[in-house]
């Protein structure tokens, strides 16, 4: 879902990171959809070379995907024409780099975090470039350190945090008549709404490496004698993967060189989104239910992690024994008994089903996400429109269908007049859908029926959140700019009035930073999960 302020936010992120001109190209792509280079130069009025350079920057940072389509030229010859399409989500992920880094530093270590940071900063790198970069930072011994970097890199790839980059320009055969002309007109928004596969989706599919190849690495660890032990284990690790690829197997070290020097790697955002989604679900369950339920949920998510399940709506079904086994793996889970687990599963709303005489459980993740989304929207109702509106909105959102004014006022215990006023305001602000019914009899009656429009609300809230992030960032820039001298003050000078100002700006920064992170969590909740 890309909203108006979503686009503004993306453009402002790009402009902050890569400057105005790149932002101009990006904005053009966001507003007009997939374009060719000549279209871009026409719309942005930039010289062709400059536009091209901008596109290269965006491609390097995974914000644009290029693809070629065959087009019949005059006469009989066909020409391949390159199109550029923007990857909106990847732009917004730029807000979240610090979260991704935290995940890695918590799960792995500081060195892996640094490695990932390099990749995030540069967008795409070969292993060789990664190693050179790491070594330029580190002044110590070469080959030993190289192997450390290699090992860390393999760890990151094995955990799917890093993946091979997609093909830079896949070729798409034109497949249907109506699809080709849609390019350029179709905005990212309509592309998402479209039921059939859009050309952008086809391009993404064609570009992404096959599952087997995506996380395949061949590294030459163990060349150094001192690291022989690690080396052996690393090769083992890779052996299974290698077997799938006979061609690579024939010449291990040659393949390794190619892999290090030529293959481009990037951060796998999908995996990080999955991890964050897991965190959000667990924390929602913890605050709504209790620790036990969240431990069980985590355990079930851990047990079911596989590629197909990254975005699935349910966890995989597991037997009680399998769940218990997973639960006691974690430190907090060790104190739980089978009864605890059973009670927790009930709290999570799991209804077991029987297969082959065994009970299976699965958790409805989509439902947890929806509850979290509702909480966010309801909090808006409460804060902006008050208690009565909150109650009425919850009533409508629970029932899910059209309800008449009088019924709402009765059930929510709100005076009819007040109820009318609130419903009207909510409708005016786009949160409700209204229908009028006129009964024709001896006297005419008019009934008003109301309903929550979930899809519209999601879009509107998302748009407001993007607007709020933009405002937050602007205010932050203003506050920091105003006090930038103060921020540079050495410790001994932070006394008296200056000290107070320093204290204030420090607190301001902390508050704004944390609000930004929280708000971005909410944006992810509505757009990525």
């Amino acid at each position, binding site marked *: 879902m890309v909203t108006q302020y979503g686009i503004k936010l993306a453009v402002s992120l790009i402009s902050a990171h890569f400057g105005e001109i790149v932002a101009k190209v990006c904005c053009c792509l966001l507003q007009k959809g997939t374009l060719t280079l000549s279209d871009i130069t026409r719309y942005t009025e930039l010289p062709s070379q400059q536009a091209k350079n901008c596109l290269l920057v965006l491609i390097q940072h995974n914000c644009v995907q290029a693809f070629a389509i065959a087009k019949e030229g005059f006469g009989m010859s066909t020409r391949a024409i390159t199109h550029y399409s923007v990857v909106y989500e990847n732009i917004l992920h730029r807000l979240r780099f610090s979260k991704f880094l935290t995940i890695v530093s918590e799960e792995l270590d500081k060195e892996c975090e640094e490695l990932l940071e390099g990749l995030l900063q540069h967008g795409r790198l070969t292993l060789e470039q990664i190693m050179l970069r790491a070594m330029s930072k580190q002044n110590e011994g070469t080959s030993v350190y190289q192997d450390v970097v290699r090992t860390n890199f393999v760890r990151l790839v094995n955990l799917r945090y890093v993946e091979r980059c997609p093909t830079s320009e896949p070729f798409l055969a034109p497949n249907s008549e109506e699809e080709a002309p849609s390019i350029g007109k179709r905005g990212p928004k309509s592309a998402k709404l479209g039921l059939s596969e859009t050309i952008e989706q086809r391009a993404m599919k064609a570009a992404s490496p096959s599952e087997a190849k995506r996380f395949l690495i061949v590294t030459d660890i163990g060349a150094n004698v001192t690291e022989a032990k690690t080396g052996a284990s690393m090769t083992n690790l890779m052996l299974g993967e290698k077997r799938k690829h006979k061609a690579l197997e024939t010449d291990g070290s040659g393949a390794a060189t190619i892999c290090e020097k030529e293959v481009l790697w990037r951060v796998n955002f999908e995996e990080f989104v999955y991890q964050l989604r897991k965190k959000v679900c667990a924390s929602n369950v913890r*605050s*709504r*239910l*209790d620790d036990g339920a969240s431990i069980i949920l985590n355990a079930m998510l851990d047990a079911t992690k596989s590629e197909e399940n990254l975005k699935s709506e349910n966890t995989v079904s597991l037997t009680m024994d399998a769940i218990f086994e997973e639960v006691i793996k974690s430190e907090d889970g060790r104190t739980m008994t089978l009864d605890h687990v059973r*009670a927790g599963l*009930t709290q999570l709303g799991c209804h077991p089903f029987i297969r082959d005489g065994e009970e299976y459980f699965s958790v409805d993740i989509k439902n947890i996400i929806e509850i979290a989304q509702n*909480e*966010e*929207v*309801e*909090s*808006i109702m*409460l*804060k*902006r429109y008050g*208690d009565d509106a*909150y*109650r*009425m909105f*919850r*009533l409508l959102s*629970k029932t899910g269908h059209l309800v008449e004014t*009088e019924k709402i006022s009765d*059930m*929510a*215990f*709100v*005076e*009819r007049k007040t109820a009318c006023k609130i419903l009207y305001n909510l409708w005016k602000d786009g949160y409700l859908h209204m229908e009028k019914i006129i009964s024709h009899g001896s006297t005419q009656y008019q009934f008003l029926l109301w309903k929550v429009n979930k899809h519209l609300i999601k879009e509107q*809230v998302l748009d*407001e*959140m993007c*607007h*709020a992030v*933009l*405002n*937050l960032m*602007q*205010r932050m820039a*203003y*506050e920091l700019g105003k006090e930038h001298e103060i921020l540079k003050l050495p410790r001994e000078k932070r006394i008296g009035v200056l000290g107070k100002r320093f*204290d*204030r700006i420090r*607190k*301001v920064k902390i*508050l*704004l930073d944390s*609000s930004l992170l*929280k*708000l971005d*969590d*909410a944006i992810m909740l509505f757009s990525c999960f």
Partner: protein
Amino acid sequence: MHSKQERYGDFQGDIKKETSLIDSLIKKSLKFLQDHNLIKEFSHYQNKGKKYFMAVEFEPSAEVTGGAWYSNGSLDMDFIATVKVSCLMCIKQLKVATVEGIAEFFDKTHVFHNKCFSEKIGEIVQTLVLDNEVMEVKSTGMGEYAGIPFGALCYKLVKKQGGVPRVGALTSIPCGVCPRIHECTPDGIISPVTCVYYTKWLDF
């Protein structure tokens, strides 16, 4: 008129239709009857503008007054609030309770003068659910639900962190509750840089 419409009362306009008397005469006679304490005036809960009359010995029906939660044609907010608080306290004490359980509890402890009907309590509990104060759960018949039949609808207090409801991410910053958000632009008259809500928020 006296004998008719015992529990529903009569609207002034209807009286006119039925008796075919002129306005001033009706008004006069109504006044006379009221002065002699033979009829009384009351209002309809959905139609407060109109005057209704009935003989003093009758009580208006729930369909006219709106029922137990109405007094003088409007919602009796104080009474509702009292019942709500009592229900909350009861659920807190019982940990998990069915509507019948709450009604029984009230009857036993004589919280209210009159007998408590579970139907009425149910209405209040539903608003507590809408208030997000209590939540609906199904009994498992085990543990804390012992004594409640399996599958019965029960109510539990909603868990709150530190006693306050969770604030959403958007509403915890000024823009989330700002009435001017649609007029706010980076370099307009209303802008984040000049925003007074922010200034207040960041006033440490």
